[in-house]
């Protein structure tokens, strides 16, 4: 075989160099693909709303939305809406997380608790509980607590279900390992079950972010004095597209930031699941 002769190896090197270049270009494209896509999309949107639609009653251009956000921020109105929605979200989310993790623990540790709670959890998880928002407003008024309740209902079930699943799927091998050293059930819970359920619990909490934000906004649409949902609905009533989109953009941004923050937290808390 002449594999090792210089005449053959040179083209091989050339191909290799080309391949390296291709890979580099590929990496560069991959690296910037997200940014290019976003900028391109925004430009297209700007173009469509200014040239094709050209009617601010139907569509606002990104530049107009930015202006609206700026104006709302200067007037302090944006901060007011954000604060109200933020309080509703945080209250509902924290309450739901605490109760959800607690219920998950109970269901994982007691067959009776699981049997008793399972039908309700499954049933209510599958129900579009957001449809209950008007009822909650009827009961609790148009203040923040009706929204908090909606958020609780939306966040509670994924957290409960994930916590229970995480605790229940703890590896028998790991439990047995600890048992071989004479560990107590309490030690097994804190040293094995709980840490191994952490990725599941965090996934449930992460799922809750999106659901909680939806809950806040939709509940506010049904009736409220302030909040981003209120901003969106009153802008829609006034055909003020830039302000409507301003509300949507802030919400989208909140969702992205919270989810990214959670992904970062997962990397810190459960790094063993990341590779």
């Amino acid at each position, binding site marked *: 075989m002449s594999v090792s002769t210089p005449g053959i190896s040179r083209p091989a090197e050339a191909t290799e160099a080309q391949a390296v270049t291709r890979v580099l270009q590929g990496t560069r494209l991959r690296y910037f693909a997200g940014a290019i896509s976003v900028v391109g999309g925004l430009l297209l949107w700007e173009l469509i709303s200014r040239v094709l639609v050209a009617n601010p009653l139907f569509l606002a251009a990104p530049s107009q939305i930015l202006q609206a956000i700026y104006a709302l921020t200067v007037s302090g109105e944006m901060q007011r809406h954000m604060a109200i929605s933020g309080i509703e979200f945080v209250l509902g989310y924290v309450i739901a997380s605490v109760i959800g993790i607690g219920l998950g623990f109970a269901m994982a540790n007691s067959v009776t608790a699981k049997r008793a709670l399972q039908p309700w959890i499954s049933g209510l998880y599958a129900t579009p509980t957001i449809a209950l928002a008007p009822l909650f407003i009827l009961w609790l008024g148009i203040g923040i607590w009706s929204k908090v309740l909606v958020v609780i209902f939306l966040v509670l079930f994924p957290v409960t279900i994930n916590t229970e699943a995480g605790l229940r799927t703890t590896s028998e*091998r790991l439990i*047995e390992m600890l*048992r*071989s*050293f*004479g560990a107590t059930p309490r030690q097994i819970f804190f*040293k094995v079950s709980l*840490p191994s359920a952490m990725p599941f619990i965090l996934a449930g909490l992460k799922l809750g972010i999106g659901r909680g934000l939806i809950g806040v906004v939709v509940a506010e649409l049904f009736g409220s004095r302030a909040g981003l949902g209120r901003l969106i609905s009153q802008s829609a009533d006034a055909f003020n597209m830039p302000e409507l989109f301003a509300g949507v953009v802030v919400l989208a941004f909140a969702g992205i930031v919270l989810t990214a923050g959670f992904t970062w937290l997962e990397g810190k808390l*459960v790094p*063993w699941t990341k590779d």
Partner: protein
Amino acid sequence: MAPKLAVANLGKTFGELAALQAISLAVERGEFISVVGPSGCGKTTFLRIVAGLEPASTGEVLLDGRAVHGPGGDRGFVFQTDSLLPWRTVFANAIIGREVAGQVGPAERQRTMELLKLVGLEGFEHYHPRQLSGGMRQRVNLARALAIDPEILLMDEPFSSLDAQTREIMQTELMRIWEEGRKTVLFVTHQIDEAVFLSDRVLVFARRPGRLRETVEIELPRPRALAIKRTPGFVRYVDHIWRLIEDDVRASVIEEKV
């Protein structure tokens, strides 16, 4: 002197199935004992009963004259799969037995570091299991069992998931570590050559019901190097044990096919 480990008329039934029947033996302090046999002969069940992970149906196990009624810090179990906690570092995994006993003082930490060095993991204390090879994870598994300074080391096919070369290296490593401390070891394996290479005595189990067929004394000089596996004396032991279990192995293979 009383034996380190005494097993008297030990039996275990799972429903109708007699997994173990009338096992009796005495293990002296510092002895390295292997248990070999076809799959289904109850060798792992036997080890788990000694560990206290499973109750015996009949008979009893005495460690230093005291009856075994459950797991405890006087026995160190080395698992077939590494069973390391993925969120803990090598060091934190190795010291967990001490932690369970509430002993994590400077002396225990120092001892755990020494053991990690002994098993060849110096410098890897802060690594996580996912960063280690299979052989290295089994070294942590071994260090973890040694870290509680057990009266007896119970090893359940610890090298069976490793590739053939790594397995041979781990066998010599285990010999080196054992020569240092001369712990009493009960080692379950399905590799006959592994059992002969490591042991002072090999307990050959038979199946249906699981029982002790023969005890083979391995009179090969120590320390043993891997090359001993190619000597006629070594091969004779392997042949002898293989003939003892051959029919059983064939039967179990046919059964598994059905």
